[in-house]
């Protein structure tokens, strides 16, 4: 049998993952590796590459931005009288100042830290919950699967936004409640995705073989099945993050987010909105940051999906 791309990918992926894999097929090694394929395919996707660089730039800006200017993110005219509120972007304040005279370059960078942190952390939580839940349901199957998936269906029926708002009202504002609110309403899709994949994968002969050799369920799931869904999970992650950024921004915009003086892009947009008529740049900047970041994550996610899927045609 010719090595079907998907089978090849599977093997390679496990080996890359650090498993000793002593099948030692020189034949396979001669061929391009999956990772190599992915990188090659991805790097040919110009939009995805551009998006990746912009994202890296955003992350770098958020990380080092606050140190580039002499003001701290919560330093305004009430503690530093030399600051003037509502300044247009200028040489000293590259992005202008807000209603308290706080430097927006610094605040947007701090906001980026919070927004990205929340987005990544919430995505992490979602993936862990979703992957565990989905793989259990998919692997065990039968009645258990039925019950677990009907539960997911029920949760799907809940309207996200009111549900998240109620959670935040109960838990109060803050980073951790925000993470929970976003995670609780977002783990359903990954869990379905992984379950579907599990159902297909567990029919494979190597699973049969592992079982015959007496491998435990946990071993089969974690050593054989999950690694094979990794591609899908990575793509899911990239596509999940922008949803989280928007979710955080939405809830913050509604006044349920991080509380002053801390900021996220959502709360900065919310503050900017209040000054829209007289000082429009205050909402334009966080708006651009949110939009660009979300767009880039989508491009990167799409790029990875195309790159990982071997059936995708190579793009120039």
């Amino acid at each position: 049998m010719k090595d079907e791309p998907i089978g090849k990918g599977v093997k390679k992926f496990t080996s890359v993952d650090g498993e000793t894999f002593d099948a030692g097929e020189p034949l396979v090694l001669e061929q391009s590796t999956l990772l190599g394929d992915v990188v090659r395919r991805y790097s040919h996707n110009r939009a995805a590459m551009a998006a990746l660089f912009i994202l890296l730039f955003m992350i770098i800006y958020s990380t080092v931005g606050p140190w580039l200017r002499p003001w701290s993110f919560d330093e305004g005219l009430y503690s530093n009288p030399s600051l003037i509120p509502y300044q247009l972007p200028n040489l000293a304040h590259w992005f202008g100042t807000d209603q308290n005279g706080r430097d927006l370059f610094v605040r947007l960078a701090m906001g980026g830290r919070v927004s990205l942190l929340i987005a990544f952390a919430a995505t992490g939580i979602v993936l862990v919950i979703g992957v565990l839940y989905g793989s259990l349901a998919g692997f065990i199957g039968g009645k258990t699967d039925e019950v677990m998936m009907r539960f997911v269906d029920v949760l799907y029926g809940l309207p996200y936004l009111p549900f998240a708002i109620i959670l935040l009202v109960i838990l109060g504002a803050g980073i951790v409640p925000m993470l929970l609110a976003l995670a609780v309403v977002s783990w359903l899709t990954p869990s379905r995705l992984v379950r579907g994949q599990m159902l297909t994968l567990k029919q494979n002969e190597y699973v049969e073989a592992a079982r015959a050799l007496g491998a435990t369920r946990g071993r089969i799931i974690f050593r054989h099945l999950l690694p094979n869904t990794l591609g899908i999970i990575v793509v899911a992650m990239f596509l999940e993050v922008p949803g989280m950024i928007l979710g955080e921004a939405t809830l913050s915009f509604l006044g349920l987010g991080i509380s002053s003086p801390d900021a996220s892009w959502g709360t900065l947009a919310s503050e900017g909105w209040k000054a829209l008529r007289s000082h429009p740049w205050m909402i334009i900047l966080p708006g651009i940051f949110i939009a660009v970041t979300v767009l880039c994550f989508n491009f990167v996610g799409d790029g990875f999906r195309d790159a990982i899927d071997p059936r995708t045609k190579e793009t120039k």
Partner: protein
Amino acid sequence: MDGLKRTWLGVILVVALVAALGVVVGCGDTTTTVAPGGDSTSTTATDMGDLAEDQTLALNLSAEPPSLDPNLATDTTSALVINNIFEGLVHLDNDGNPLPGAAESWESSDDGLTYTFNLRGTDTWSNGDPVTSMDFKNSWTRILDPATAADYAYMLYQIVGAEDFNGGTGTADALGIDATDPNTLVVTLTSPAPWFVPMMNHQAFFPIPKATVDAFGDKWTEPVNIVTNGPYSFVEWNHDSDILLTKWADFREAESITLETVKMSMINEETTAVAAFENGEIDVQDALPTADMPRLKQLPQYKMFPTLGVYYYGFNTKQPPLDDVKVRKALALAIDRQAIIDNIAQADQQAASSITPPGIPGFDVMVQDFLKPTAQVDEAKALLAEAGFPDGAGMPEIVIYHNTSEGHAAIATAVQEQWKAIGVNVTIKNMEWKQYLDFVQNNDDVMVYRMGWIADFADAYNFLELFRTNSGNNYTRWGSADFDKALTDSLSAADDAARWDLYTQAEKIASDEMPIMPIYWYTNPDLVQEWVDGYFAQPLGNQVNLWVIKILKH
């Protein structure tokens, strides 16, 4: 994932659209009160030809009125509605002078202890019942009844027997309220009160339809149940959304009232409300967004009304570390009041150095200068260190509560930054007005809360009695026997000078113990469309006599 993403995207889109429609932040109390009366108020003479066909006023109330029960309402938002659907014994003109209302005339005895109000005998309630002196007696007995637990009961304490009855030691029969003649109400006071007649314009003294109140309990203020005696009928109340008033055709002076309909909205974002105003959807907006103040002040619709009021932060004096007076003083000293006025309030407010605002008789004598317009950071730090929190070390986090409003939020963040400068960390929480009032009064977790007080009558007594131990509007959990005594003594003071001296003592006690931290003395900037003729927000309670308003052609 896609579904979720699309949901969020949709939400963002909607929010963005709403944002595009709205714009602006403001500050000011969500309070606005209206008083009937004032016939001849500054209305410019208008010919019928100048009047718009549609005599409808759209006014933004900013919040759901917490209560429309005259005996229970404590805030200006509620009072704005109550004062136009009920009628008290008197109305006030724009200068605060009493005009005949339900009472055609009144006399006081030479010693100032007995007031006799003469009712017309022809006025009726909206269900056809006559308005009698019993309706007033019923109302006043109800507000004083300890079972009613009305916050404003203390306003009536000067009536003979009122304090005892309200305190549970007296009986209703002993009250100095005589309604034996249906058209004559005789009130006996324990001490002279020069403000007693104008005070009859306050909703606490309004009559109530007792049969209706008894029949429907706390649902009696719903439009289907309510019985009113004021110029406007209470037609619709869609909670948390809008209120509709229409002119009551059987009102005594209905023929002379031009304004037919009043639509009240409850938009609490100043930005949104001002955008609606600029689109012509709202005729009157009294809370203005700080970010747009410089621009709004240039508009011809920008009107400034005099007002008697103080914007303050109250401390829960039972909650550590605020139970330590040094901490309270340190926090009060750390505030740069002038910076808050210059950058946020922006409507020529004055930095408050004590509780009673300028414009109150005797202000020049009473004014205390304990609180400076600018921050006294060094003194604040020294006090904080004395209290055992050098540079804020070991200081628990302080929570500032405010009712939802962009302006209050802006002031809270300014205060937060200023307290941070002396090492005190602050978190800020906000609640919708009705829930907020309930919270600050009944939940002992409250720490620092923002509040404002607009005078009910033009005397310092009205401001100071707020903080008496037994005042229902005292949310500080603070009480001082000396403070109470100074106020009680002031009621029997020989003359103004002696009275003001006692007020000064009370102010001194309050600034020594700092249960509240005054920030500024209010002004009242409103946006009023140019086609609204006769709109005037009174200094007392920011009341608006809607019935003198005319809508001009536009």
